[in-house]
């Protein structure tokens, strides 16, 4: 349907068009999946490591926590523009730093094989909230567990893998689901920096939805996309939820 006319029932036409004719439909889903596969594990691993380090008895814990949180609250158009400039191929300061190390910096936003990695890096820069949630989860673990482990002779690594990691799994589980849902909706960074390019390499489902619904006036087709996205997100959430009984450990 479009906005001006009356809506009429089209049966499965939109779905058939999506699956058989629209070349960008699968492209958009593929790109989004590529982003999710890189971003979600990256976000979980980094936030666990930083959360773990922050939970140690260290000087300036509050300072570090604040610093990691700042990119999260400022994430928006302003910061996206800023990161785009830092990652600029010819004048960006990042490639200058790399050149000091004797590395020729890649064409971060212009190379179709590199650009999604850049978008993932931009997103990883703003995971301060995940870090703080992870830190809170780790801090909830009773100290006495570590003390008994130490008496039994467990080293630092052993303590992380046998105490911290298992007892943080409920927090990881929460972060995983929330991060998955958010990651599938990736829109802002590719929209602002690459407009889906180069060669559609960062053209995501949300961009396809936006373009169809709000630029081409194909609201019905955009709704098809939204439901497709919803189905994928639901499926993954269910898989994570079903799997949770094998790896999420509740300590009560």
């Amino acid at each position: 349907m479009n906005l001006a006319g009356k809506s009429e029932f089209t049966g499965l036409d939109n779905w058939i068009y999506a699956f058989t004719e629209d070349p960008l439909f699968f492209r958009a889903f593929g790109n989004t999946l590529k982003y999710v596969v890189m971003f979600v594990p990256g976000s979980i691993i980094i936030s666990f490591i930083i959360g773990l380090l922050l939970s140690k008895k260290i000087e300036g814990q509050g300072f570090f926590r604040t610093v990691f949180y700042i990119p999260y609250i400022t994430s928006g158009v302003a910061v996206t523009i800023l990161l785009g400039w830092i990652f600029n191929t010819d004048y960006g300061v990042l490639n200058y730093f790399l050149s000091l190390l004797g590395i020729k910096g890649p064409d971060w936003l212009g190379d179709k094989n590199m650009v999604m990695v850049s978008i993932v890096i931009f997103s990883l820069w703003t995971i301060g909230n995940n870090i703080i949630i992870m830190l809170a989860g780790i801090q909830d673990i009773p100290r006495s567990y570590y003390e008994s482990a130490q008496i039994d002779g467990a080293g630092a690594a052993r303590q992380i893998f046998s105490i911290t990691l298992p007892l943080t799994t409920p927090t990881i589980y929460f972060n995983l689901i929330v991060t998955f849902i958010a990651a599938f909706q990736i829109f802002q960074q590719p929209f602002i920096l690459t407009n889906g390019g180069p060669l559609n390499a960062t053209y995501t489902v949300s961009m396809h939805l936006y373009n169809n619904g709000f630029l081409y006036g194909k609201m019905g087709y955009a709704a098809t996309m939204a439901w497709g996205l919803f189905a994928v997100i639901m499926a993954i959430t269910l898989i994570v939820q079903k799997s949770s009984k094998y790896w999420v450990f509740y300590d009560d």
Partner: protein
Amino acid sequence: MHIKSYKGTKILGKTATYCILISASMICLFPFLWMVSTSFKETAQIYKMPPGLFPENPTLNNFIEGWQGADFALFFKNSALVTLFATLGTVLSSSIVAYGFARFKSRLSPFLFIVLLGTMMLPTQVTLIPQYLLYYKLKLIDTYWPLIIPSWVGGGAFNIFLFVQFFRTLPKEFDEAAKIDGANSLQVFLKILLPAVRPVMLAVLVMALVYNWNDFFSPLIYLNSSNKFTIAIGLQFFKGSQGNVKIGEMLAMSLVSLLPVMAVFATCQKYFIQGIKMSGMKG
């Protein structure tokens, strides 16, 4: 000997911890430093290689010309207006809905609460199109209403959930005592319960402020006229009209747009951290 080597690893571990944390902090802070530095540079110096951290002849030109390059004063005013009303709505409506869930039981309320929490899993895209059509039929496209109304009808499942959790920790005797003294339900809510959950209220408030100030997607689809743009859309619009040509002005304006968020964060930091920690609790 054994003790010594244990101490040795401990010092090594501490050093490694600090090294990683300091490097990660630098990665987080450096872009902001670079933004400030670039904003004060002359155009020629911005493109100079090798780049320098400190501007050679610091200039305010980027700020002056950027500010005049598009109607940023207007964008700021628009953003302030939307953020103010949306935030006010979020705090008021999420707390009062939570009051309902926490204190007024009906047979339907457990079911409704599950439905409410279910909406948190719903990606925004799913409700986007029906919502847009609704506002279109109401002739509210290109007004601020679509950006403000949702905050006044519930204010988000997550915020409601936070309030419910905290209202439930308050003993019912509070309410009853006030009622014996002649307070009605609304007065109990406003004078007894709300002041008791002030930290939650502030956490919801600051997070809503930042969310609404930064929001990009809703203004993008609902606002068409450039004189109605919020700062987020204004920046994107400015970027579109300048390309990479006036990066100094763009970064200067980006920096200015971050100042309100930074100011709120600097003064209310502990409420942000509290809010985030509470969000992890439901996991």
